[in-house]
């Protein structure tokens, strides 16, 4: 994807392919993905289960378990360096220090037998260069920042509620002021009112720490609240990429349009019908030829089923992987 601005993006992923070799065949989890994030911006990566969102994030941190996983091809330039060519030491200083991650399930992603202060301290002493008391002071600062009383630092994760644990996760991730924060479904496991607290917290802290954000989610609503740019992912590839407003106002890819139509909203008329995307996600061990969405697409033509279109810039900054964007869905 060409640069959208003059300065180079913070993160530039090109033609990334990740696969898992399983008993039932090769799972093509990420399949030729192109994605870039600019400094200080937040990008929402949206897709349904199995679209390859989390795999992308883990690939970026080089945390794909191998076997069975394998990064087949591509490049991931982070701040000018290809993550795929980094040494183990470089990777370690990048993980946590330059790119930090918040995980989906706050119940399982904290070490159950370490106090939360120890877990925040661990991150700080790995990357900040602070020593001794400074580390603890910084950890307490972080706790205060995310809304946890510092005296609770001696407690263990099981003594916290889900929302509070996710705050701990955020404190850990932001403790060393990373250049990029990856948040993988940070609110999916939480209740609506707690979700609102956490979204609010992430949005505010992103400004405070001045970090770029990659928000992975299936929830278009949360993206609307936090992100500047949106990327829609389907079957291991991006299908649409644009700044928030154009994409939400005028989604062009048939899948994106279907996704927007399928979400019930607070303003929908009770008892109406939702427009449904027929069929299922393709089997990741046996992806269709051509465009991945073609088997479910109401506008698919012969060409869609043989050769994928590739990203095209239909409007300035609005990229769509489709020959026939803007096809109106029959409602």
């Amino acid at each position, binding site marked *: 994807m060409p640069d959208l601005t003059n300065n180079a993006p913070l993160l530039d992923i090109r033609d990334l392919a990740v696969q898992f070799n399983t008993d039932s065949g090769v799972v093509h989890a990420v399949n030729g993905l192109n994605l870039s994030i600019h400094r200080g911006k937040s990008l929402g990566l949206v897709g349904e289960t199995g679209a390859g969102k989390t795999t992308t994030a883990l690939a970026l941190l080089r945390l794909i378990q191998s076997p069975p996983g394998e990064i087949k091809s591509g490049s991931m330039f982070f701040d000018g360096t290809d993550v795929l060519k980094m040494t183990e030491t470089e*990777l*370690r200083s990048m993980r*946590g220090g330059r790119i930090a991650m918040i995980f989906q399930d706050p119940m399982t992603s904290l070490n*159950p037998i370490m106090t939360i202060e120890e877990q925040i301290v*661990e*991150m700080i002493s790995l990357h900040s260069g602070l020593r001794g008391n400074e580390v603890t002071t910084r950890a307490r600062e972080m706790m205060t920042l995310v809304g946890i009383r510092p005296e609770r630092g001696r407690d263990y994760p099981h003594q916290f509620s889900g929302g509070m644990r996710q705050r701990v996760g955020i404190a850990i991730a932001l403790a060393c002021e990373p250049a990029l924060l990856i948040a993988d479904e940070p609110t999916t496991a939480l209740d609506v009112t707690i979700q609102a607290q956490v979204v609010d917290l992430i949005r505010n802290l992103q400004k405070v720490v001045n970090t770029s954000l990659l928000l992975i989610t299936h929830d278009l609503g949360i993206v609307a609240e936090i992100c500047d740019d949106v990327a829609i992912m389907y079957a291991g590839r991006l299908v649409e990429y644009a700044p928030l407003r154009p994409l939400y106002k005028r989604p062009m890819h048939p899948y994106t349009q279907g996704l927007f139509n399928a979400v019930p909203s607070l303003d929908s008329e009770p008892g109406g019908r939702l427009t449904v995307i027929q069929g299922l996600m393709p089997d990741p061990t046996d992806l269709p030829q051509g465009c991945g969405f073609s088997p479910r697409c109401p506008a698919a033509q012969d060409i869609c089923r043989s050769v994928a279109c590739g990203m095209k810039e239909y409007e300035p900054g609005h990229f769509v992987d489709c020959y026939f964007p803007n096809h109106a869905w029959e409602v």
Partner: protein
Amino acid sequence: MLIPVILCVMIVLFTILYFTPGDPARIALGQEVTDEAITAFRSARGLDDPFVVQLGRYIYRAVFKADLGYSYVMKSPVSYELSSRIPMTAKLAFCAVLFSTLVGIPLGIICAIRQYSILDSVVTLVTLLGVSMPTFWTGLLLILAFSVHLGWFSSMGFGTLNEMVLPILTLSGSSIAIIARITRSSMLEVIKSDYIRTARAKGQRESVVIFRHALPNAMIPILTIISIQFGTLLGGSIITEAIFSISGVGRLMLEAISMRDYPIIQGGVLFISLAFCLINLAADILYAFVDPRIHVK
């Protein structure tokens, strides 16, 4: 929980052996004695009292006077016989547990972090053989190899370091295998968990991830199996002591079994069960140290 369990163990043992055919008086006095002598022996020892009375007396004496009865064959108090043999067995079992833990856990960890490697396959195969070899056969093979053919180690007794090698190897063989297998599967389970991914995403060194994050979380099943192995090893000491002619509790009991010397059998099994229960208790307390989510009841 410990006390009622031990009391029940006493009742069970006493009952089993009480209803076992064979007259204790005959066993004590031999076949060549008069009926009068038998009668006198029986009444002197209260063997004609009802079952419940005998049981009550046994428990009362055991609990309050540490008196486990009188050996028919040795003609001495069971507690005396046991106490002279306990140190040997304790030393043997303790050394074996220590050895199998020190070998088993690292083996398990190596296999887990190098899953599907050649090393993993080799260790998996060896541990499979380890759990499948009967202790007594392992002992015989070790004697054959290291004592008979190579002449490196002694095959009798358990005093000097040289004598200790083969019995410990024999006794800990299957424990090493079991501990290694449990450690491997427990570590594999933990390594897959989300918080290990979190630790890696922090940029932590792999060695710290394994030893600071994964291992402590994998400890609970490992501790459990070690405490169970303690029991197995205490039981297995019967065989090891028999093979290597070590005069510990196991050999005492084996002799008692062949002589039908019930008070010794009762006392021996009781001692081993008590030791086993105490070790389980210790493991329960350790759990709470390892995992803050568990509270000592």
